[in-house]
């Protein structure tokens, strides 16, 4: 493994990106001005050198393994000795004693975490996600408003967020279909990983604030029942029929304890598979939810939040409800997911559950748990290398990998003050 260490020193210099190498290669081909007098043999030689060089450059960003001091396991534990062997864009093997052929990136004493997953984001939204004409909008697809050219993705990526769900907001009863997106592909651009995500539902007070039906909570529930009823009678939009058949998950925003019990009732009557977004009355409703929902999403936590909000995630965990913590990007700080998990971990959430609450659990609730949010063979190689435990707010992001490519490496200036 010694040779890997030698390569790890490469961390210090900024790596040539694929784009830059490619540009150089193209420039050589398209601009023959510097080499007009060379014979064909010479041209061939330069061509070969260029190809080899760009291959090396590419390989530099696409290692065959990432090696670090420890990694975050599927259970959320920090396991020492981490070798994550990659096969193209997926993880081939994980463990402490995995032999690796080829180039590896080595980060001594660092922790490899799955890429963070924000299930409550509105990153890179171009335009409004809420159609206000009608409160029931099953035809809305969040993927349609993703602006791939937004600059927000890069900031999120550098904070370790590789996957996010673009969700219609809380202002419609049936908001539309969520999309699961990546903040970066190997080319550095965001893209849609799964356009058929969960269906967004809401009973938040925002639903009632427009000049349209419903204007009362009772009517809101009435309209939902009517819509689900129609779907059960095999009429109405196909998406709602999928929902009542339990094939599509509903992400249901239910701010009050009363909203939670209404949602649970709807789930029982219509056989819905629900994920509830709820924080405020956790101590009262955690027991009710146990076994009846797929999971719960706690709203983003800020550094000023008090004991009640902070204790919510821990309460859900105690009742056995899978809990995810939202990040709320870009309305919250780029570190929002880690801040939320760190805070919940101080108020009763166990450390493994806190690590899973911003990786594996949101990925599962979004229906992409087989691909992202966890380090295990077969999953996509979306990895974040932290200088310490991701839950420790003192830790920094050293590098980010997406589909096996290193798309971000911190500069030496950014790593100042971190012990090697």
């Amino acid at each position, binding site marked *: 493994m010694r040779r890997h260490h030698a390569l790890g020193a490469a961390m210090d210099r900024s790596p040539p990106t694929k784009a830059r190498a490619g540009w150089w290669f193209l420039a050589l081909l398209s601009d023959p001005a510097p080499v007009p007098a060379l014979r064909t043999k010479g041209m061939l030689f330069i061509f070969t050198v260029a190809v080899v060089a760009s291959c090396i450059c590419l390989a530099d960003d696409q290692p065959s393994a990432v090696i670090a001091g420890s990694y975050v396991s599927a259970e959320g*534990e*920090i396991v020492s000795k981490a070798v994550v062997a990659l096969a193209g864009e997926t993880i081939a093997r994980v463990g402490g004693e995995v032999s690796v052929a080829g180039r590896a990136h080595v980060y001594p004493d660092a922790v490899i975490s799955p890429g963070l997953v924000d299930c409550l984001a509105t990153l890179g939204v171009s335009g409004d996600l809420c159609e206000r004409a009608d409160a029931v909008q099953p035809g809305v697809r969040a993927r349609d408003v993703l602006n791939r050219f937004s600059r*927000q993705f890069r*900031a*999120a990526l550098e904070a370790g967020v590789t996957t996010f769900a673009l969700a219609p907001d809380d202002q419609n009863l049936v908001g539309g279909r969520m999309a699961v997106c990546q903040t970066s592909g190997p080319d550095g651009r965001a893209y849609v990983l799964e356009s058929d995500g969960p269906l967004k539902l809401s009973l938040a007070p925002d639903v009632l604030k427009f000049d349209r039906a419903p204007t009362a909570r009772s009517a809101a529930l009435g309209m939902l029942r009517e819509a689900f009823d129609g779907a059960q009678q095999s009429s109405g939009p196909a998406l709602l029929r999928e929902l009542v058949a339990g094939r599509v998950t509903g992400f249901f925003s239910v701010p009050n304890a009363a909203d939670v019990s209404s949602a649970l009732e709807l789930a029982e009557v219509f056989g819905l598979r629900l994920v509830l977004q709820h924080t405020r009355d956790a101590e009262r409703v955690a027991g009710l939810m146990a076994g009846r929902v797929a999971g719960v999403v706690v709203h983003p936590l*800020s*550094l*000023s*939040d*008090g*004991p*009640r*909000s*902070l204790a919510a995630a821990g309460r859900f965990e105690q009742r056995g409800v899978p809990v995810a913590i939202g990040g709320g*990007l*870009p*309305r*919250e*700080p*780029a*570190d*929002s997911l880690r*801040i939320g998990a*760190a*805070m919940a*971990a*101080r*108020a*009763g*959430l*166990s*450390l*493994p559950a*806190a690590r899973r609450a911003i990786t594996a659990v949101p990925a599962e609730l979004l229906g992409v748990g087989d691909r992202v949010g966890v380090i295990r063979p077969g999953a996509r190689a979306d990895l974040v290398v932290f200088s310490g*435990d991701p*839950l*420790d*707010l*003192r*830790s*920094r992001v050293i590098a980010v990998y997406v589909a096996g490519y290193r798309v971000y490496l911190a500069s030496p200036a*950014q790593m*100042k*003050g971190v012990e090697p």
Partner: protein
Amino acid sequence: MTADSPLLSWQAARGGGFFVLRGLILLAGWVGVIPPAAAQMRPVAIQDATLITGTGDVVTRGTLVLQDGKITALGTDVKPPFLSRRIPAAGKYVTPGLIDVWSTLALRWEPALGQPLAQAADAFDRYAEYELRAAWSAGITAAYLPARAASGFSGLGAVVRLVPPGASDGVVAKPEAALCAALGVVEGEGPLARVKIMEEMQRRFQAAKDYREACNDYEDALKEYELKLAERAKAGTVSASKPAVGKPTGNKAAESKKSDDGEEKKDELKKPAQPENDRVAKALLRVIDGDLRFRVTAQSPADILNAVELADQFNLALVIEGGAGAALVADELARHQVPVVLTAAPPPMAFTGGVEREARADTPAALQEAGVPVYFGSGVLPTPDAAPNLALRVASAIGHGFRADDALAAITSRAARFLGLEKELGRLEPGLRADVVVWSAHPLSPGARVEIVFVGGREVYRADRAPPEQEQAE
């Protein structure tokens, strides 16, 4: 104990030795069920803990003794005193109570314009039990409360100790800790408001200096007047009529009046007029003299520079609060050695307008790098469910480049010195107030929880649930 003595002697008198024995048993039983209030008075010994003294020193497996509201001993070879309550704390960490140097905790304050004499201490709700508990749950035991306003002078900030409601010891540690002001554009007013506020503050400070001059002139004139009066008395030329009393104007005005009134006799003595008592000017003079700090809430770099200019002009002990955009003027702040109290929350990812638009996550690090003294405040706490989570704020600053060695001191010993309370708060040291926090792990490490909080030697908080198992030792 005194309540038992009559019982004991009564029984002894009635039944001899056997009853004495019974009495002793009774007494022993009574000691065993000492009511909680009395138990609080017993010395406390926190044993085998890692003691973070707040000055950078760490004592591993040390014992800390709290007695009569003070820290009386700490070290590795300290014996717990007789009858003390022992708290085994192996694997746990003990720090001084954290000090929040800018917080709106339990502050029932209506922001108002131009009230330099309003006291934030009067607005502190000492019975706000939920908020106090929230603060303790974050390890905070003392806080500086600002007198807030959107702009201009806003009042006198105070330092409070977070003692439980109804406790007899002093809540207010310093009723007049600083003169507060704010620079910045008030919502709904044009950008010219900034110029107006600056001008108004300059005018008030200048007026205060003029007031002092007027007072000095008055005193000189009074002395002169008394001297003359005495001279005349000696010469026996005092007329029977009373000396005329001037109108309450400045000395100069009195003089000019004298010269105007031609008919008045030249030798008639006039008592100089005393300048009207100006409490605002007196408060501002205390700032000019350096008795009071001048704490200015300023977020944008332009406002910060204005505050520095104002402080330069009148030689004020300036503190910048908020400081969202302070990193952009770090060199200027370092040159004037202006401390900055950072209260801005980490900025949202997306650009937002408003005064905090320049906020950056690495502001603490940038200021520290430039040599600016940096302190942390929890800022404006939203109600009703909020807590000053200072330890996490500091951890987050470290994650963005703040030097770790200075981090805990910034919210303990350095904060105490900054507030002028270094003789009683901020360190684990014999003689200081027993404001002490027991943590489940290193305060900055993941999952660290506040388990017990002592304020003035009294246990005020205990985490209600058993702490989760620690996965890794710090």
